[in-house]
């Protein structure tokens, strides 16, 4: 066993070095090699590491980044799967990178973002101390499945985490339902009040009661199916959260200020990111911090001071004006970007990059479930919309049928031309790419404008 661990760890570390030598940051292949040599490797490596697992459809990366910042500011020894390698191979690789050749951990804690389906296996192997579930939405990646399938995967992950404190989003009827199906200690978090004045109207991913299938009513909604849900028939309702946002004090282009109640104590928190969904990400991280037992003030500082994740509101300087990249994966995320755009105060160019590789979802029809009609209200604010990516044609048609004047659209068949156009025009830019479009575009933009490589 010990020799196999040594062999697997060595092979993995070596292959990561070789890949980086060729300028590639992949961790999936090294992880796969290691697991081939020693299938029990992850359990062995994680045995003496305190793990926080972050899963759910949207907000995993940003929540994990804030949690990481909380660990950092508490001076805790930790590592995290930074590059979004959130399947079992990638998670294994990051544990190897943070272990000695004999498989001893170099750090005491780990913050692990984990894919919903992979959480079943990952949780079983690493026995997490805390599991955070952000939300469950219909995701274009597993569109042939149903949201109930995603929920079930997460449930099994938690059932495989007997020692974990579980932090659940109380506003998501699907996520909250996990509480009654596991014996774990549960802490709920949520947002007690509406977030947007005029949110885009959305198709609910969970209109019917998970217990009795009757239609839910809401005392208020934040967005999508999140909010004060209750079933008028069987009485299933949003649980009272122990950590909640009680008032939205200020929503700015670059930050949000909210009043929170944490186990009965009122406080004010500044979130160093705009967008309503980032309020959820921040309060989820605050909840995890409480579950771990960190001091509250450090968590507050982390939330107000952390910097953006990879492609998540990440900012580039185009030379006098800025570009922000906001990764989207599904209609819910897309609608949140549209909500964010409607809160802007200065004229902005909006860029949509739609790809259809496996990591983006091969079916691009989800763009018709997002409410691009909202852009009609922003006609004066957004003078031009640029369209690019493998399926730029589909994106342009979607915008045309949303009611956007064709003269406003500019289609770019390659990213070099797109980047040049963004740079020569004077307005700030908001770029909304799918995953592989983000990877390609980000690499090109980093080369031109400076930025970190993705595995750093």
């Amino acid at each position, binding site marked *: 066993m010990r020799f196999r661990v040594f062999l697997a760890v060595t092979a993995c570390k070596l292959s990561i070095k070789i890949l980086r030598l060729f300028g590639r940051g992949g961790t999936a292949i090294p992880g796969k090699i290691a697991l081939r040599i020693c299938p029990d490797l992850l359990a062995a490596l994680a045995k003496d590491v305190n793990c926080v697992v972050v899963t759910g459809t949207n907000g995993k990366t940003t929540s994990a980044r804030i949690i990481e910042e909380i660990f950092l500011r508490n001076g805790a020894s930790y590592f995290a799967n930074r590059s979004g390698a959130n399947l079992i191979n990638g998670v294994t690789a990051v544990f190897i990178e943070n272990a000695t050749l004999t498989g001893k951990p170099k750090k005491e804690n780990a913050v692990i973002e984990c894919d919903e389906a992979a959480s079943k296996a990952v949780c079983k192997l690493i026995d997490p101390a805390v599991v955070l579930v952000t939300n469950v939405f*219909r995701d274009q990646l597993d*569109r*042939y499945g*149903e*949201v*109930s399938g995603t929920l079930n995967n997460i449930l099994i992950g938690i059932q495989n985490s007997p020692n974990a404190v579980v932090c659940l989003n109380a506003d998501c009827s699907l996520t909250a339902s996990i509480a009654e199906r596991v014996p774990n200690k549960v802490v709920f978090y949520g947002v007690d009040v509406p977030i947007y004045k005029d949110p885009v109207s959305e*198709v609910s991913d969970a*209109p*019917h009661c998970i217990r009795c*299938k009757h239609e839910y009513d809401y005392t208020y909604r934040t967005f999508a199916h999140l909010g004060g849900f209750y079933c008028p028939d069987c009485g299933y309702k949003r649980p009272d959260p122990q950590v909640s946002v009680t008032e939205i004090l200020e929503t700015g282009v670059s930050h949000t200020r909210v009043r929170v109640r944490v186990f009965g104590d009122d406080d004010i928190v500044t979130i160093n990111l705009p967008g309503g969904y980032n309020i959820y990400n921040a309060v989820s991280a605050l909840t995890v911090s409480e579950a771990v037992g960190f001091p509250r003030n450090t968590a507050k500082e982390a939330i107000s001071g952390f910097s953006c994740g990879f492609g998540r509101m990440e900012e580039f300087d185009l030379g006098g004006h800025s570009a922000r990249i906001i990764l989207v994966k599904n209609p819910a995320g897309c609608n949140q970007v549209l909500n964010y755009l409607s809160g802007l105060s200065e004229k902005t160019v909006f860029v949509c990059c739609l790809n259809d590789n496996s990591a983006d979802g*091969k*079916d*691009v*029809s*989800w*763009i*018709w*479930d997002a409410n691009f009609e909202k852009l009609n209200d922003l006609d004066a604010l957004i003078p031009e919309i640029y369209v690019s990516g493998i*399926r730029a*044609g*589909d994106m*342009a*048609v*979607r915008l*045309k*049928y949303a*009611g956007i004047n*064709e003269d406003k659209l500019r289609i770019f068949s390659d990213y070099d031309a797109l980047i040049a156009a963004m740079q020569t025009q004077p307005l700030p830019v908001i770029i909304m790419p799918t995953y592989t479009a983000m990877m390609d575009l980000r690499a090109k933009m980093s080369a031109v404008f400076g930025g970190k490589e993705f595995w750093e």
Partner: protein
Amino acid sequence: MKLNICHLYPDVLNLYGDTGNILCLKRRLEWRGIDSEVTALPIGANADFTRFDLFFIGGGQDFEQEVLLADLHSGKDKEILSAIEDEKVFLCICGGYQMMGQYYRTHTGQQYDFIGALNLHTLGSDLRMIGNYMFRCEALSGGSTVVGFENHSGKTYLGEGVSPLGTVLHGYGNNGEDGTEGARFKNVFGAYCHGPILPKNPEFADFLLQTALSRRYPGATLPPLNDVLENKAHGYMTNRMEKAV
């Protein structure tokens, strides 16, 4: 002129962006100065079916299927059948297409009885037929191609009196076996085609609109539109699939 469009079960049959078809119909009428009114008919709601010219029904999740079938069998099925007899236009996609048939039988043998408007049935299978696909649609002038995305594990088989909507050029179609895709019976058009089907296949969209318009206003025709963007998106996919064969 005005067409009345009925969107059946938008509350539960709302997967895969298929509501984009409703938007497409509305816009293509609007751009020609023709009025339209869309009536959403969720579970439990009723309406006078004789008002409508065109119906759309999409696909949904299994979770809601029982609720839906109960509502369907409480009277809407008869309304739908008589609307079909009246030669009204129906566009039925994926789950909505299966639902117009006789039944769906899962591979464990459980049978769900549907409307039976079209002589076809669907059998559950282990194979997920998923991916970009295209078919030649015989109804269209010159048998033009329709492009889209299919995503189903049910295999549909057509019985007598029902013709396929098209011939598969790339992908699986009805069952991955007989080269057929979709079904046509009177003015009911069923297909597995997501995408959604209409915006990227403007010729097919206009064929449905023209059929509905001619029924309501004999002799009326649709003036052509500027479909440069639509045809570009369509052409990109036909090229890509032709190269992939």
